[in-house]
């Protein structure tokens, strides 16, 4: 298999319970020959024990004891498969409203979201919620699979009706790239193999769509942002004066000789060298992990950000974020949290809940200022010192934050800078 230049595509699946998510993933794995014999054997045994005839494809994905017993997905599970064109990482997230936080988690790093709709039911509240989250998390590509087409006689009319329904409500959401595919996860139509039952459908199967999505421009290549993770100071004799700033390029491109500024101090210098591992390179771009040295001996530490002199993020102490609440205990107004943004940490308070989103109707409720688990709302945050922020719409890596409760150390919220 020639795979040297193959890219990695991460996608998440969403759909309400029983729409066929697990079956679809099982089908993708099975038809792309990514299932091993012993896995098949174990799933066949379990299928037989449960009295299914044939192999229940859904069993390939549910992992924990409780999930297999109850036949539901509780936590995000990751699955992997490779085709001659790409490597794929699937974040299989549970669909139910009480697991919104898991869907947000799976969506946060995804290049694409696959949303399932049961052809018999069309667009339902869950579909709207999942699409809203995909758009809120700025997932670059959305693939809407109209599933169980076998149960509606592969009807073009039913399919078109659902597409229209979807387009109507989703016009309110910001989404760049939306595609629709009629499938049967159970029978395999248009998943990996083209269906003979949908001659009226001309576009690609789900797999060929995933294989060809243009993802190179999913990462912002314009605004150079380099959050410093740690400073490398070797103890050896020959490297006595070496100070390498290690981190992962969050966005943009850096070249040796670039004039840069170190934030928040604002000191300026030039890039002297860039290393990727042991190897010296002339340029580096997102998402490479590198280390760089600067011409001048200035004070740089973890949490600082090295940017281009003439392209800098906003430096703010008070700002708005769309916040998804992840914890059992509701958000406490004016309580102190640790805010984490790239490699930078400060203390923060939620000054105000501007409005809460009804994630089924997309309506804003500015009367209700109570954010509890799985709620999403716009809040004002104030931090002890300035943060170096970009809008999430422009930059997923430098526009995202989490809040940590200092009394429990739990991650309680995920936020997107507005």
């Amino acid at each position, binding site marked *: 298999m020639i795979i040297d230049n193959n*890219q990695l595509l991460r996608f998440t699946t969403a759909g309400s319970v029983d729409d066929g998510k697990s079956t679809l993933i099982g089908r993708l794995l099975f038809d792309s020959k990514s299932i091993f014999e012993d896995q098949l054997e174990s799933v066949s045994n379990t299928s037989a024990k449960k009295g299914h005839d044939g192999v229940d494809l859904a069993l390939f994905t549910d992992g924990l004891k409780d999930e297999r017993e109850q036949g539901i997905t509780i936590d995000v599970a*990751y699955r*992997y498969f490779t085709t001659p064109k790409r490597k794929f*990482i699937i974040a299989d997230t549970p669909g139910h409203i009480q697991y919104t936080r898991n869907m*947000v988690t799976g969506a946060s790093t995804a290049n694409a979201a696959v949303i399932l709709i049961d052809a018999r039911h069309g667009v339902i509240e869950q579909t709207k919620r999942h699409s809203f989250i995909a758009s809120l998390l700025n997932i670059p590509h959305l693939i809407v699979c109209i599933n169980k087409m076998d149960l509606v006689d592969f009807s073009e009319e039913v399919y078109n009706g659902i597409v229209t329904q979807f387009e109507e409500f989703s016009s309110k959401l910001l989404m760049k790239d939306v595609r629709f595919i009629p499938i049967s996860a159970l029978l395999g139509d248009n998943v990996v193999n083209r269906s003979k039952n949908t001659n009226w459908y001309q576009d690609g199967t789900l797999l060929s769509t995933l294989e060809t999505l243009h993802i190179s421009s999913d990462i912002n*290549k314009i605004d150079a942002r380099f959050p410093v993770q740690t400073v490398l100071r*070797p103890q050896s004799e020959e490297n006595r004066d070496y100070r390498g700033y290690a981190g992962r390029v969050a966005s943009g491109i850096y070249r040796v000789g670039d004039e840069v500024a170190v934030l928040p101090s604002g000191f300026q210098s030039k890039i002297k060298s860039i290393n990727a*591992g042991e190897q010296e390179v002339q340029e580096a771009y997102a998402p490479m*992990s590198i280390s760089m040295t600067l011409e001048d001996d200035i004070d740089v530490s973890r949490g600082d950000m090295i940017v281009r002199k003439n392209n800098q993020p906003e430096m703010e102490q008070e700002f708005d974020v769309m916040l998804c609440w992840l914890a059992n205990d509701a958000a406490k107004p004016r309580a102190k949290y640790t805010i984490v943004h790239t490699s930078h940490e400060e203390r923060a308070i939620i000054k105000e809940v501007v409005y809460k989103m009804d994630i089924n109707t997309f309506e804003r409720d500015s009367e209700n200022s109570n954010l509890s688990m799985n709620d999403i709302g716009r809040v004002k945050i104030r931090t002890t010192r300035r943060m170096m922020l970009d809008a999430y719409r422009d930059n997923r890596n430098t526009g995202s934050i*989490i809040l940590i409760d200092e009394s429990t150390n739990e991650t309680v919220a995920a936020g997107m800078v507005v």
Partner: protein
Amino acid sequence: MSKYYLNYLDELESEAIYILREVWAQFENPVILFSGGKDSILVTHLAKKAFYPSKIPFALMHVDTGHNFPETIQFRDDLVEKLGVKLIVGSVQESINNGRVAEEKGKNATRNALQITTLLDAIESNKVDCAIGGGRRDEEKARAKERFFSHRDDFGQWDPKNQRPELWNLLNGKHFEGEHFRAFPISNWTEMDVWNYIKRENISIPSLYFAHEREVVFRNNSWIPVSEYLKLEEGENVENKKIRFRTLGDITITGGIESDADTLGKIVQEVSAMRKTERGDRSDDKRSETAMEDRKKQGYF
């Protein structure tokens, strides 16, 4: 297409290096759990890249069951010497001698589960707050649920249904006294990715992974190596076979496969044609549907 994108191996490498650097930045006393198998060798290789030109800032911690392949121990000692890092050994034999654990009895007895106590004791006595492992989500269904930064309570236990959400690349390693973390930098790698990368980087691995002649007996559908610990059962014959190992665990339970793959290139080809998972030959995972989940909850690797 623009040239500014990474291929999948570079992206996995970059992600792993990012996680290793986060471990270094967020914890006081992290170690790499080093078994001598390819995954922990890979993690060590990635750590070398992450901190170059500094030395790897982590000690290697080996939980020694006493039932090793001699080749593994030799490899471990050579690597530690070459890298100039500290080696911490937790000994299962000592845990048995001290009465911390009791040896399993019967014909399928292994020291696999006993490692948990030794591991947790070593973590505690060395005040380790983060143990970096080579676990991969594709290995086993319970592992598919692991986070990059995985919290362990003060009994060293994992609570899979109550894990911290992990969003974007923001890793939360905050913990209280007595608790620790496990970090899994190669979570997103598959067995195939590991082999492709080992080949690309020409990483040296124990000779056991390459096809070689060895005395073995056929048991539980795989070739178990003859060693001082192996008790022959009725009807079992010692044979001389050309085999290699896909994973390395205890010599008592790690089964080999018949193979002619004696170079990295041939191994990559062989693995890509395999129709069985690599853990399919390990009797520790065959005990029950949830064998791995049960052990992991208690604190296993």
